């Protein structure tokens, strides 16, 4: 862990590797110490992020611990004082040759048609350490060529060398032991249980760590050969964790993403959504040229950039002239890079003159709260004495954060307290406190008043997210306020899902907040421009997403700009989103795909997507890292900042930058929070891990916790709705990736089995859910993770939409259940 004190010198263990002295760390495995000393010991089963098992025997080296030299597997032997190791002796070489000859006995020589050929550890090590020929003349073992173990992963058992990496990963890291060694002896093979596929959210990692071509991923299978691939390092923006990735392309198309091991974040792992959603770039729904609609009911038709930009600019000009700048609103921005977000914040406030900007779609948390809470890193969270999670199920929303938290709780025995209305993926591993939807703050207060006092002694990190979208975020904010009162030393890790939401907040895409988490009201003189020049900057804070939507529904928004936002899918009030889109004068959508909302827009401008643009992104910790552009955007799609710059130009102002590098230069020069993070630091190797940029309190930003609201009394005739996001849903990138789209479950009403008995219905029956907003019909599932009195329905899942039931701002959503 990074925060541990420097190792004292007397903790060092002196060993000799191939005649050279090296000081290893106490307890370190010999293979890891050798690696750090610059001596590579060949291996297949050893993986630095998993426990050693000594399965493959490839790492045998001659070790003398004082009793004479002998062969030992270096992945199973911790270093000891005075140990003498010879990795190149005749005995070691003979052992390596023998092991490779044995491993290759049953391994088919189908390298020319194997995906792994060219980057295969077995192939490489057979060349480097192998005997060159085999004495085995008998028939090799044969199995049916690849069998699918899941929708994404295929298993070729002939190629498998039984290293236990995939099964160990599934068991130890992912906690989804759905694959296992079966049979024994010569017939040993990895298998799933019949009809129970390896449907882990993390299955793609097994393909990446497989040291042979036994596991291959369906989306990449036979797409490219490794030597044809070109690679750039980047950061995944699918969710806010910010996993480091290698983006690989062939023929100007992204064909694969791999996890890159960085210590502070992802440890090399990716979730399957982040790994495979590059497919969406080639989706038929991708917008590749501007689209414009003639009349209200006509279909959008292709237009040229000048025509579309002229239309957008004139709509903006007309709106400003006729109704003032506050009739313009910008929704979204969490898909954008930091540079894009900054450019749009500058365009909105400095050129258009509106503060109606919000990168969250009323589905997040208070921006003031997120930007003022003392922030924790993921490492600090995982090494805290106590972790408290509020509402969010990290496995569904921030999968790799789940891996880190799971490791902390299961392996490192960190105490965790979870507050959630339903059972989550972490519930089996922690103290899980159930509360009624809408009563989170009460539940937290009660806990702090009783058992929670004991948490006061050590470090506490609170993982704070928006668990259920069926109630307002105010409940979570009130709970945070309670924790701040009782545990003033607690730090917080925001657990919001959308890609660069923290970056967009820190770049000022939130009403009343300027770039760098400075309050708009702190400007002196009022209205003075943050970056120096503009008279148009608004003085009064504008509307947040809920306000914008309500104003639009009331006909007070003349131009609504959707920055990669899809209110119809993401706003937890479908009815309001519909009315807002219908009530806006002109809707301009800037998006990668033709989403449901973009389809309703008057002007659609195609934006470059992940892997297609340079810039930086910020993860939930506030870690700024660089994105790698790998391929050219399809058609005439271009980065969002470029669209902002051209719109500004058409409105008569030069935003003052010509590429994303210049934007970052301006950000680091103008925004105090980023002053120690200039361009050359962002471009240095140091930035591979990302550079933490967390706002201090100099911005004058205040968070006023919401007044405590008693949760409404339980309505005995109704159930309380919980609606949370699942990993696979109708999110744009997921729904447009053919390999992932099918993994999204049809939305179902989930009820406690006893609730089903009470209603006299069985699994699969259809039910009507009635809220003040709407009546919807959906199939029902029994789920004992849902307590009685609660009904759960995934948010934005295919099928009947839970957001139809929800009224934005309501503390809870009570629904009546009608059997049909």
């Amino acid at each position: 862990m990074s925060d541990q004190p420097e190792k004292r010198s007397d903790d060092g263990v002196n060993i000799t590797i191939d005649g050279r002295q090296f000081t290893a760390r106490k307890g370190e495995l010999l293979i890891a110490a050798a690696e750090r000393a610059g001596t590579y010991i060949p291996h297949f089963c050893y993986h630095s992020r998993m426990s050693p098992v000594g399965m493959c025997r490839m790492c045998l080296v001659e070790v003398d611990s004082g009793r004479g030299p002998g062969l030992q597997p270096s992945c199973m032997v911790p270093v000891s004082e005075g140990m003498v190791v010879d990795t190149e002796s005749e005995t070691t070489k003979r052992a390596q040759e023998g092991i490779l000859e044995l491993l290759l006995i049953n391994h088919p020589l189908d390298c020319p048609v194997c995906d792994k050929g060219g980057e295969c550890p077995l192939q490489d090590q057979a060349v480097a350490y192998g005997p060159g020929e085999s004495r085995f003349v008998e028939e090799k073992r044969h199995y049916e060529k690849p069998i699918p173990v899941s929708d994404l992963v295929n298993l070729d058992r002939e190629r498998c060398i039984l290293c236990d990496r995939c099964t160990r990963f599934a068991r130890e890291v992912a906690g989804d032991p759905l694959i296992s060694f079966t049979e024994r002896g010569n017939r040993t093979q990895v298998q799933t249980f019949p009809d129970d596929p390896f449907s882990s959210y993390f299955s793609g990692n097994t393909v990446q760590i497989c040291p042979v071509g036994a596991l291959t991923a369906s989306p990449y299978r036979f797409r490219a050969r490794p030597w044809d691939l070109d690679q750039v390092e980047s950061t995944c923006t699918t969710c806010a964790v910010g996993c480091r990735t290698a983006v690989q392309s062939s023929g100007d198309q992204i064909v694969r993403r791999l996890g890159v091991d960085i210590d502070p974040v992802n440890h090399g792992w990716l979730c399957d959504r982040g790994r495979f959603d590059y497919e969406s770039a080639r989706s038929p729904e991708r917008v590749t040229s501007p689209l414009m609609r003639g009349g209200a009911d006509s279909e959008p038709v292709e237009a040229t950039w000048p025509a579309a930009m002229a239309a957008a600019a004139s709509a903006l000009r007309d709106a400003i002239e006729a109704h003032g700048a506050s009739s313009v609103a910008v929704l979204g921005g969490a898909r954008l890079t930091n540079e894009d977000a900054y450019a749009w914040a500058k365009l909105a406030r400095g050129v258009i003159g509106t503060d109606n900007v919000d990168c969250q779609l009323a589905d997040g948390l208070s921006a003031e709260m997120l930007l003022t809470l003392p922030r924790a890193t993921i490492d600090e969270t995982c090494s805290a004495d106590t972790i408290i999670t509020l509402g969010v199920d990290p496995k569904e929303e921030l999968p790799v954060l789940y891996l880190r938290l799971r490791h902390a709780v299961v392996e490192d025995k960190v105490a965790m307290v979870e507050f959630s209305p339903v059972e989550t993926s972490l519930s089996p591993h922690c103290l899980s406190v159930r509360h009624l939807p809408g009563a989170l703050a009460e539940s937290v207060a009660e806990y702090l008043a009783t058992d929670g006092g004991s948490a006061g002694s050590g470090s506490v990190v609170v993982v704070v997210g928006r668990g259920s979208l069926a109630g307002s975020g105010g409940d979570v904010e009130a709970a945070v306020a309670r924790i701040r009162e009782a545990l003033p030393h607690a730090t917080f890790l925001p657990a919001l899902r959308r890609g660069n939401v923290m970056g967009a907040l820190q770049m000022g895409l939130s009403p009343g907040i300027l770039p760098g988490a400075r309050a708009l009201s702190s400007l002196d003189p009022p209205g003075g421009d943050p970056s120096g020049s503009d008279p148009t900057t608004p003085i009064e804070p504008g509307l947040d997403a809920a306000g914008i939507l309500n104003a639009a529904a009331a006909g007070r928004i003349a131009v609504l700009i959707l920055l990669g936002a899809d209110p119809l899918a993401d706003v937890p009030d479908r009815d309001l989103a519909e009315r807002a889109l219908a009530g806006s004068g002109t809707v301009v959508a800037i998006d990668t795909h033709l989403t449901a909302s973009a389809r309703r827009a008057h002007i659609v401008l195609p934006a470059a997507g992940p892997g297609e643009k340079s810039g930086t992104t910020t993860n939930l910790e506030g870690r700024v890292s660089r994105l790698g552009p790998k391929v050219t955007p399809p058609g005439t799609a271009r980065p969002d900042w470029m669209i902002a710059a051209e719109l500004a130009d058409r409105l008569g102002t030069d935003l003052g930058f010509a590429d994303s590098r210049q934007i970052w230069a301006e950000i680091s020069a103008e925004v105090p929070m980023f002053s120690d993070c200039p361009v050359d630091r962002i471009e240095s190797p140091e930035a591979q891990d990302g550079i933490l940029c967390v706002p201090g309190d100099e911005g004058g930003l205040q968070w006023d916790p919401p007044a405590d609201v008693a949760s409404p009394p339980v309505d005995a005739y109704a159930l309380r709705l919980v609606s949370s996001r699942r990993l696979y849903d109708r999110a744009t990138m997921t729904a447009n990736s053919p390999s992932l789209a099918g993994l999204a479950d049809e939305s179902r009403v989930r009820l406690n089995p006893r609730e089903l008995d009470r209603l006299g219905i069985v699994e699969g029956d259809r039910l009507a859910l009635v809220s003040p907003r709407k009546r919807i019909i959906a199939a029902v599932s029994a789920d004992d993770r849902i307590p009685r009195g609660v009904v759960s329905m995934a948010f934005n899942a295919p099928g009947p939409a839970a957001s139809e039931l929800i009224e934005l701002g309501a503390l809870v959503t009570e629904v009546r259940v009608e059997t049909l």
Partner: protein
Amino acid sequence: MTDHFTPANLDLAHEIIDRYPVKRSAMIPLLHLAQEQDGWVTEDAMRQIAELVGVTPAEVLGTCSFYEMFKRRPVGRFLINICGTLSCQLMGAGELIHHAERKLGITSGDTTPDGLFTLAVAECQAACTEAPCLQVNYRHRYRVTPEDFDILVDELRSEADRGEGPDPGNPDAGGVPRHGVLSLSRQHIPAERAAGPSSPTSDQGPPAWMPPPDAEEQK
């Protein structure tokens, strides 16, 4: 929820699970119980065992398939394992196997159509001095000649025809129990002597079954 064990066996399964500090430890005993109930281990049984001990079905399959004596296909009421290792081979196991295949009308590895016999060639059964030997449901028969084999098969057949043979419920009846029956007497551990569900790492005191120190003095 899978519903494979009979209610009586489900009670028994819970009793078995309660014997262990960690539920997962009951996996192999429960596989035996499933094999006893059905004569083999069905997929549904593995599913239910997984639910009962809190692991995935794949992990149960991994354990179950490691052990040759857990059968994952139906086997006959009597599983005849003829030893095919060196000593028995020298003493005529080869002829015995051929004879058995002719007598039962099946090749080794198969089950007779009436579901009574499964014939298999097995590795050494640790009775080399009594070669050639075989096992019927893991009960030894020594120095088996082809004639002995015929008599054995006829006996077993008539035993099955009469619907006799011992069962856990009737341990006094003679003959060979059905395949899968592990033991004719059940082990019952009284609750006060069971280890219970406490974690082995957190439990520092003496084991539950150890008599308290003053009990000895009283004697």
